[in-house]
Structures are given as structure tokens and as C-alpha cells.
């Protein structure tokens, strides 16, 4: 910061502060070893608070039967424990749901590093505490320094005890308060001998070792330093929040290099410790992937994954670099990112590499200008389960290669024997060399070397003087043999490289192809349900296991799609899914929450928020590549789901808009179609009243007729509205009686006869017609509506034709007019309600009478009777409309 710039608070510090808003406060009672009195101290402090009127509840406390400690519990509310069944034991565990429901102001939770019984919601108690803090509850807890993640290796080296229950260091840094409970090592040993320190049976054996004065002194130092550092961190944090310039991290950046081996996690912890020493300098854990080297087996993939996970828990960054030359790649990265400290493991390179100065450490040493190098010696790797399947597979491949080598060498020998018989003195070595070369190219390094060795033996024994002896006759033969080995090595190495590269690129290509296919599939679907199904199928294919997608339904999650289709989730699995949804964090296998499940549930978080939850049951043998593919897929899926949701909302809006428009059209229709005839009635009537004397008699008669006609028109319109309402409301009752359709047509024509005007109406009825079962009233009304429509659209002098005929299954009514016809685009829509009124302008509004209900009602009636109705236009050249009604004949 320069002087002329005002000092601003550090945004990161403020952000961390804001994140803390609404969270409970965490206080840790830190001690160097069991027995220093952390629990006692916590309880007595808690009791004082309770006496001050604070709502204090004891969540879980291990008194180990000690009287002084137990007496402190008097007067404090203690939460009952929650039984968890594990195999044949019933374990009494801390009841996190009980605590969340009780929601005290302050909760005392002993043993921060405790591992919960399998089957609990969280693997570790510190995760329970995180959830409690998240719910706004203040928590006090106790912790021994050896349980800190980054100190595990150090503690192991000092005391020989490997601590399995660990707490990420980052958590201690977020603690709002740390109280160091201190005791001198001598005092602690006295307490130990007095039997005041409880040790579980299993640890008793190690305890003599553990409680040595030297060990305790070392642990005490660690505890003191850690407490001091936290106080320091809090001071620095406070200064940064207020924009005070202070002596923090002077541009140190740490890079930790790991490989896929057992030492990776230890290196990560070493990096964290270094970062601590450098005022919390930013640190990054990097792994270099070499495209030309085969990816490691599943075991090394797991080591890498564990190391990366540990790095994240310890607040470190992670990155995977790609490059064939590891030192170059690392140094390039270091230069670009101003790395000042590089941490590497003690070299486990083959001795010849070290001799040749080709080890990673040496290469870095030679060229790491500016960056300090830290070599960390790594102890014996932790025992890890072998991977039987993979090992077996490899042996089978190699076996095939060796068999091939044997056959090829045999063939070479045969060819050499033949050649030797017919043409003595030729260079038979070349034939063997060819066999070795082919073996190398076909099966790689090891079979090639085997072929070379075998060839040397056979060639020397059978073909080189002295024959039938392994004695080497000429010095030059040694040279020939060396060439055999060299060719085998070169060919085998080359082939291996090519094959690995091909395998790698095909694996990458298949991942990319899978992603592309998924993206195409996901972009092709429209609804959320389809998207969920597509996503489940793609995820299942990518994970080589079962997959589900859950979408929110109201307050709860619903299983929306699964692959295969018949997957059901157990209660525990649903709990994990809900957890993932609520907390926006993964749950289930491979996570800290309900890890005993075989499923992993991940929230699908899109651009705008949560879209759902995806569950995947990964094949346990799957590697990093598959997991990455699944993650990428789920990210795509989240966005696709979100898009589907938006699309659905848009459709809903459109439907609403249309229904609004329809309502508007209905109101317009009523206002126009009721008022126009009313105008005539009223206008004619008032004309008659006001000017009766001056009107000629024929004018008077005409006005009276127009009053009647318009009243009828009004009545028809009201009738239509009522019919429509009956159809819409589902109140339509159809009778069913044997009917002669010709009678119905005749009475319909009679009803509209007077309105025909100058139009001629022709009938084409057959002499015999099969009777059909229907509601004659509804059919008549439908026909009347169609005829009225024809009259309205048809100029005065044009003919209308009504015909009826029958085909094999139906009686068909055909009503044709010779009017202007209906444009192609509208023919589909003529049976829609208020069709005419939905037109963009109401220019045509006054042109015709009726609200466009007639045909829609006709369709409704015909279909209610099980018939069908269709329209065709134009039918006579450019003109004419034909409406067909087909009614099913009795079977």
C-alpha cells in the first residue's frame, strides 16, 4: 500500500467476518495431552455462565467416572445420549438433532476430535459442531494438540503413536476463542500415577511411551505455540479488518509437490506447517500429470485424491499441472506464480537417476532460481489394501506377451536352423534380432527383454562356435548380444509409450465424447422431468453405477428420475440427499456426512441457485478421471435443469397471457355481440315511439321485424354462451337414442330457413340410412351452428349443400358452402373458441355476427357424442368450405 492511498479494510477479512454473522461462537479448550483438566475447566466455566443466567446445556461430556468432574454436572442440563446400533454393540452417541431442537445459547461438547459411531450423520464430532455453529449455537469444546491434522506426523515421530482422530487445522483458526489448559509435564505424570488420568484400554499399552517427560514437553510446546499463533492470527485478522498495516505475510508463496504415493498426505501436512510458520502464507499443492506416462493405478489415484482432500481441509489450494518434464513444468508454474518456497518429498528415484543427477530434487536445485527448496523425509507408508483385480489384469496381459515372445523366438530359431542348413555362414543374428524387435513392438518392454535373453541363449548355444555350449567364442559376440538387449529395450519402450499415449488419449477422448453426448442430450430436452431422466442416465453411464436425480417438490425432495428406472432410496439415503439439498454440500460416500452409504449425493447448483440433488453410486474401483467426468456432467445437468425450469416458467407465463387475452376477448365479445342487436332493438323501438306518426307503414313494419330478428339473434347468442358454459363446466349430459340423422338435418334446416335469404339450400339425402345412437338435440344444435356459420360467411346468392351418406363404419354429414373459404393457416383453428376475436386488430370485429363460439360448440357437442368433426377449404377452386361430421355406426 502506498502512502497516498487511504487505508482500506481488507475485503477478505471483512468477508470472513460477514460469513461469521449469525454463526455461533466456538471456544476451544486446548491441552497438550489427556489428563490436563480440559473437561474440568470447561465444565466449571460453563457452570459459572449458567449461574450468570446463560442458557447452558451439556451436549456430551466424558467424565470417565471422576468424582470432581461429575459433581460439576450438578445443576447443569445434560442432553440425553442417542443410541446408535453398530454391529452387536449399542453405542451411546451425542444427539445432534436433540441439541438442534433444544437450541441452547451455549452447548458444551467434549472431545472435538471424536469419531462418531458408524451410521451417524457425520463421521466426526467436529462436523457436528460445525452444524451447531451454523445453527447459531455457541459451542465450547475440548481438544488435545496431537489431534491437529498437520501435527499428526510430528506427533508420530515424537511419540511413536499414530493419531487417527484428527481435526483440520483450519477449524482451530476459525475458533473465536482458545483457552490453553496447561500443566507442567511433571504434574501431569503425578496425576497419571495417582490414577487421575483415564486411558482407554487400547491406549494403555502405548501410554508409558506416550507420557514420557520428553514427549510431554514437546507436546506442551506445540500446544503453547498453537495457542499463541491463534491469538496472533486473531490480532492480525482484527488489524486487517480495520485496515491497519501490519507485519503479515511478506509475499511468501509455497508450492508443495506431490506424487501418487503414500507420502503425499505427509507432504501436504508439511506444507501446512510451513505456511503456518510464514504467517499463513498462501500455499498450493500441485501434482504433475505426465501425458506420456501411463496414469497410476487406482491406489495411486486414491493417494492423490486423499492428499488433495487433506490440502483442502487444511485451507490449501490444489492444482494439477500437465507436462512431460516435471522439473520444467514445476519451475514454469513457480515462476509465473511467484512461488518462494517449494516443498518436495525425499527422493525415492532409482539410484542411477540420482547418480546421473536426473532426480527431481537435483533438477529443481539446479534451476530453482529464487525459490527455497524444502526436502521432507517421509517415513514408511501406511499399509493400504492391495487392489487384487488390477494386479491380476496386468499379469494376464504380460503373460500373453511372454507367450508371444516364446513363439517368436521359437520361429526365429526354426528359420535360423533352416537358413543355417542351406546357406552356411550368413548372419543368423539378424533373424533373432527381428524376433526381438517384433516382440518389443507387439507386447512392450518386458516380453521384449525376455525374448532378447532367450534369443541370446539359443543363438549362442546352437549357432555360435563353439556350438552346443554357452561359452562365448568371440568378443564381438558380446557386442551382438548388447545390440539384442538395446533393440529390445528401445522397441519395448517405444511401444509402451505409444500404447500408453493411445490409451490415455482414448480415455480422454471417451470422456470428452461422453460429455459432448450428455450436453447434446441435455440441450435436446425441454421439461425438468426429461432433463432429470437424461441426467440420471448419463451420470449412471459415466459412473458405471446407479444414479438418481431428485427435484424439489414444495418443501421436500422427490425422486424424479433414476437409472436404471427401478431404483429406490432408503431412509438413510434420502436423509443424505436432503442434507445435500439443505446445506448445498455433498453427502454420502466419500464425504464427511453419512459416509457409510454407497451413494454420493451432490447438490445441483446452477447459475441462479439450487436446481436439485443428484445421487451417484460410483463403482468403487473408479478413478479420478471418472469422478471428474461425473462432476462435469452434474454441473452441466444443473444448468440444464435450471434452463428447463425457466422454460417451464416461460410457458406458464405464456399460458397465463393467453388466458388473459382470451378473457379480454370474451369481454369484448359480450360487449359487442350483446350490444349490437340491443342497439337495433332500442333504436328501432325509440324511432317508432318518437316518429310513429311520420313513418310510412312499410317502414314501421320493417322496424318491428328488425326488432324481432335482433331479439332472436340475442337469444341465439345467449344460448351459445350457455352451451359453452355447459361444455366447459362439464355439465353436459348426453342422451343416447336411436336416431335417423336425416330427421335431425331436416329439423335443423327448418330452424335456419328464414335466415337463408337469397341463398339456395340443396339437400342430398339417401333413400336408406342406418340409424345411429346419439343425442338428437345436440346434433341438431351442432348442425344449426354450422349452417349459421355458413350463412354468415356466404354472400347472399351462393348455394349451401347439406348431404348425408354412409361408409363402412360411419354416417357422415357434409355441409358445404360456396363462400370465400378459409385461409390454410386458419383452417386448423376454426374450431377454437373466440378464434375470430383473437385476431391482432379488431378491424374485422363488426364484419360478422357471432363471437366465434358456434363452431367450437358444434365440435364440443359432436365429440361429446363420440363423433368427429373436420373442416376442409378451399374445395371449389379457390372458394368454398366443407365441414364433415362423422358419427359411428353401431358395430
Amino acid at each position: 500500500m502506498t502512502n497516498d492511498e487511504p487505508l482500506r479494510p481488507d475485503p477478505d477479512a471483512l468477508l470472513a467476518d460477514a460469513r461469521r454473522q449469525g454463526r455461533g461462537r466456538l471456544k476451544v479448550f486446548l491441552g497438550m495431552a489427556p489428563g490436563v483438566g480440559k473437561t474440568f475447566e470447561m465444565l466449571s466455566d460453563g457452570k459459572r455462565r449458567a449461574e450468570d443466567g446463560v442458557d447452558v446445556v451439556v451436549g456430551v461430556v466424558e467424565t470417565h467416572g471422576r468424582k470432581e468432574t461429575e459433581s460439576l454436572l450438578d445443576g447443569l442440563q445434560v442432553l440425553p445420549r442417542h443410541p446408535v446400533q453398530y454391529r452387536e454393540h449399542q453405542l451411546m452417541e451425542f444427539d445432534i438433532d436433540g441439541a438442534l431442537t433444544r437450541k441452547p445459547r451455549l452447548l458444551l461438547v467434549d472431545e472435538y476430535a471424536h469419531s462418531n459411531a458408524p451410521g451417524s450423520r457425520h463421521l466426526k464430532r467436529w462436523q457436528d459442531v460445525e452444524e451447531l455453529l451454523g445453527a447459531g449455537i455457541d459451542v465450547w469444546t475440548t481438544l488435545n494438540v496431537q489431534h491437529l491434522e498437520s501435527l499428526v506426523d510430528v506427533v508420530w515421530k515424537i511419540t511413536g503413536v499414530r493419531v487417527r482422530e484428527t481435526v483440520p487445522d483450519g477449524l482451530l483458526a476459525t475458533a473465536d476463542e482458545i483457552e490453553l489448559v496447561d500443566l507442567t509435564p511433571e504434574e501431569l505424570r503425578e496425576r497419571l500415577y495417582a490414577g487421575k488420568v483415564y486411558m482407554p484400554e487400547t491406549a494403555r499399552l502405548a501410554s508409558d511411551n506416550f507420557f514420557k517427560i520428553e514427549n510431554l514437553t514437546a507436546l506442551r510446546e506445540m500446544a503453547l505455540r498453537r495457542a499463541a499463533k491463534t491469538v496472533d492470527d486473531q490480532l492480525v485478522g482484527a488489524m486487517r479488518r480495520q485496515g491497519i498495516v501490519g507485519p503479515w505475510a511478506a509475499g511468501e508463496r509455497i508450492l508443495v509437490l506431490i506424487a501418487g504415493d503414500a507420502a503425499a498426505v505427509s507432504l501436504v501436512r508439511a506444507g501446512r506447517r510451513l505456511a503456518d510458520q510464514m504467517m499463513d502464507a498462501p500455499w498450493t499443492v500441485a501434482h504433475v500429470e505426465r501425458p506420456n506416462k501411463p496414469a497410476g493405478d487406482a491406489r495411486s489415484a486414491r493417494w492423490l485424491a486423499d492428499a488433495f482432500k487433506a490440502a483442502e481441509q487444511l485451507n490449501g489450494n490444489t492444482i494439477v499441472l500437465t507436462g512431460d518434464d516435471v522439473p520444467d513444468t514445476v519451475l514454469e508454474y513457480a515462476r509465473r506464480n511467484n512461488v518462494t518456497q517449494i516443498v518436495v518429498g525425499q527422493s525415492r528415484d532409482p539410484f542411477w537417476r540420482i547418480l546421473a543427477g536426473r532426480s527431481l530434487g537435483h533438477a529443481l536445485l539446479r534451476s530453482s532460481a529464487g525459490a527455497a527448496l524444502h526436502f521432507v523425509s517421509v517415513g514408511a507408508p501406511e499399509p493400504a489394501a492391495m487392489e487384487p483385480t488390477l494386479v491380476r489384469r496386468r499379469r494376464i496381459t504380460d503373460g500373453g506377451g511372454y507367450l508371444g515372445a516364446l513363439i517368436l523366438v521359437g520361429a526365429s530359431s526354426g528359420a535360423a536352423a533352416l537358413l543355417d542348413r542351406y546357406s552356411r555362414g550368413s548372419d543368423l543374428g539378424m533373424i533373432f534380432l527381428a524376433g526381438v524387435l517384433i516382440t518389443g513392438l507387439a507386447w512392450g518392454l518386458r516380453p521384449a527383454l525376455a525374448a532378447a535373453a532367450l534369443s541370446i541363449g539359443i543363438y549362442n548355444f546352437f549357432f555360435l562356435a563353439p556350438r552346443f555350449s554357452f561359452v562365448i567364442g568371440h568378443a564381438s559376440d558380446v557386442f551382438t548380444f548388447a545390440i539384442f538387449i538395446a533393440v529390445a529395450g528401445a522397441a519395448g519402450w517405444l511401444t509402451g509409450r505409444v500404447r500408453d499415449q493411445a490409451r490415455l488419449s482414448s480415455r480422454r477422448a471417451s470422456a470428452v465424447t461422453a460429455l459432448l453426448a450428455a450436453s447434446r442430450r441435455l440441450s435436446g430436452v425441454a421439461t425438468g422431468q426429461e432433463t432429470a431422466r437424461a441426467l440420471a442416465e448419463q451420470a449412471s453411464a459415466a459412473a458405471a453405477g446407479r444414479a438418481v436425480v431428485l427435484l424439489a417438490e414444495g418443501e421436500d425432495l422427490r425422486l424424479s428420475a433414476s437409472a436404471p428406472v427401478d431404483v429406490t432410496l432408503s431412509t438413510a439415503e434420502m436423509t443424505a440427499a436432503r442434507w445435500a439439498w439443505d446445506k448445498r454440500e455433498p453427502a454420502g460416500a466419500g464425504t464427511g456426512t453419512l459416509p457409510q452409504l454407497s451413494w454420493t449425493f451432490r447438490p445441483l447448483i446452477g447459475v441462479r441457485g439450487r436446481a436439485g440433488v443428484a445421487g451417484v453410486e460410483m463403482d468403487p474401483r473408479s478413478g479420478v478421471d471418472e469422478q471428474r467426468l461425473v462432476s462435469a456432467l452434474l454441473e452441466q445437468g444443473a444448468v440444464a435443469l435450471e434452463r428447463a425450469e425457466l422454460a417451464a416458467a416461460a410457458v406458464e407465463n405464456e399460458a397465463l397471457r393467453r388466458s388473459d387475452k382470451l378473457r379480454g376477448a370474451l369481454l369484448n365479445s359480450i360487449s359487442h355481440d350483446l350490444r349490437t342487436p340491443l342497439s337495433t332493438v332500442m333504436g328501432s323501438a325509440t324511432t317508432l315511439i318518437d316518429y310513429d306518426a311520420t313513418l310510412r307503414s312499410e317502414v314501421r313494419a320493417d322496424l318491428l321485424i328488425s326488432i324481432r330478428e335482433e331479439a332472436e339473434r340475442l337469444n341465439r347468442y345467449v344460448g351459445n354462451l350457455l352451451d359453452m358454459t355447459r361444455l366447459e363446466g362439464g355439465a353436459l349430459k348426453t342422451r343416447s337414442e336411436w336416431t335417423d340423422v336425416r330427421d335431425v338435418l331436416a329439423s335443423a334446416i327448418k330452424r335456419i330457413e328464414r335466415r337463408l335469404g337469397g341463398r339456395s339450400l340443396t339437400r342430398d339425402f339417401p333413400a336408406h340410412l342406418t340409424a345411429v345412437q346419439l343425442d338428437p338435440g345436440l346434433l341438431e344444435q351442432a348442425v344449426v351452428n354450422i349452417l349459421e356459420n355458413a350463412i354468415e360467411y356466404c354472400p347472399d346468392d351462393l348455394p349451401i349443400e347439406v348431404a348425408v351418406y354412409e361408409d363402412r363404419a360411419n354416417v357422415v354429414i357434409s355441409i358445404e358452402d360456396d363462400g370465400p373459404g378459409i385461409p390454410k393457416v386458419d383452417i386448423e383453428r376454426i374450431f377454437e373458441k373466440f378464434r375470430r376475436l383473437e385476431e391482432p386488430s379488431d378491424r374485422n370485429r363488426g364484419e360478422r355476427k357471432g363471437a366465434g363460439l358456434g363452431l367450437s360448440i358444434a365440435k364440443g357437442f359432436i365429440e361429446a357424442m363420440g363423433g368427429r368433426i373436420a373442416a376442409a377449404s378451399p374445395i371449389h377452386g379457390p372458394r368454398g368450405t366443407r365441414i364433415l361430421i362423422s358419427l359411428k355406426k353401431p358395430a
Partner: protein
Amino acid sequence: MSPHRPRILVIDDEPQIHRFLGPALEAAGYEPIRADNAAQGLAAIASRAPDAVILDLGLPDMDGKDALLRARAFYTGPIVILSARDMETEKIDALDAGADDYVEKPFNVGEFLARLRVALRHRLNQQGAPAVVETGDLRIDLVKRLVTRAGQAVRLSPREYDLLARLVEGGGRVLTHRQLLTAVWGPANVDDVQYLRVFIGHLRQKLEADPSSPKHLTTESGVGYRFVAD
């Protein structure tokens, strides 16, 4: 029957309307001219020079408002709107676009003819506007700018007088809020309808026998005001 029968052009696409309006107009001493769409109507305005035009807003070939604007480009006679639409905004738009009055369907023929007479008289008055309007005990002298009620001078503020004068000059036509505000307060105040309400209220207090049920200064809800002489 007078020697000159005023020609009234009726533009409406409903034959039923012509069917009774034609005889009614004839019976009232006018000569009706029938047009079934806007094109026919505009042609008839140009060729027959009608004394007044009755225009339906819902026409098959052109929106009634467009027809009104086209007619106004070359025709200055009274235009009365017939409309089945009862949206205030449409009436206001039509009046602002130059219509003289509007009648809602369905309508009473007697009332319709009275409106038509007002429109015709107003046009005649424009040539030689009466300086003095007398109705009941109210006397408004537009030349001397003097208003008396039962012989007593009524004190009006300049704004009140301007507003009253505009309404009286309207000769019984409805004047829209916009027209009144533009004329009295200026174009910047066309949206300040509350001014109008206040000033109309004052005028009614001073001029009406019963200000709560005004006889002369009547409200056209949502549209404007008109001055009605007995």
C-alpha cells in the same frame, strides 16, 4: 319541411343500424347517406359534403380512429362517434382526435338526435358565435366577461372564468380533460386533472342551484365536462 334538409352521412357496417337510423333521420327532417365501410364513408365525405358525419368505431376495413383522423384532414363539419366500446380511453382518444361527441350503443334515438342537433348548431355558431348565453336565471356575457345569476354579478377568478368560457363556447359538446387543461392551464399541465375538479367544484358552488346535482356543468365520467343549456 325546410327547403334544405341537412345531409347526414352514417358510416356503419351493421345493416341493422342503417335499417332504423335511416328512417329515424328522415323522420327528423334530415337526408341520410349510407356508407358500409370506411372507404365508402371517406369517399362520401369528399363527394357529398355532408352536414354531419356519424361514425362507427368498429369498421371492417379500417380502425374507426384512423378513419376519423383521415376525415379530419379535409372535413371540418361535426363528427359524432357511435361506439359499442365503453372504454373511456377510446372515447377520449376519439374526442382528442377531433370528434365532436360520442354516443354509446345501444342508444335512444331521441337522445342521439339531440346530440346531433347540438353538434350541428355548434358549427353554425362558430361562424357567428353568440356573445351571450342565457339559461334559466344564469346569464353569461362572453364579450363583457360578465356572469350574472338572477341579476346579481357572480365573482369569478380569472381561471374560473376562462374554464367556464371554454365550456360555454363548446355549446353543449363534451370537452375532454386534456382539451380543457390545455386551453386554460397550458399544454404543460395536461395531466393535472385534479385542478379541473377543484375549479369545476368552485364554479358549481357559484353557478348551480344544487351543486351536488349539477344541471349545467355536467360530468362525463372519466372523459371530461360539458356545459348544458336548457
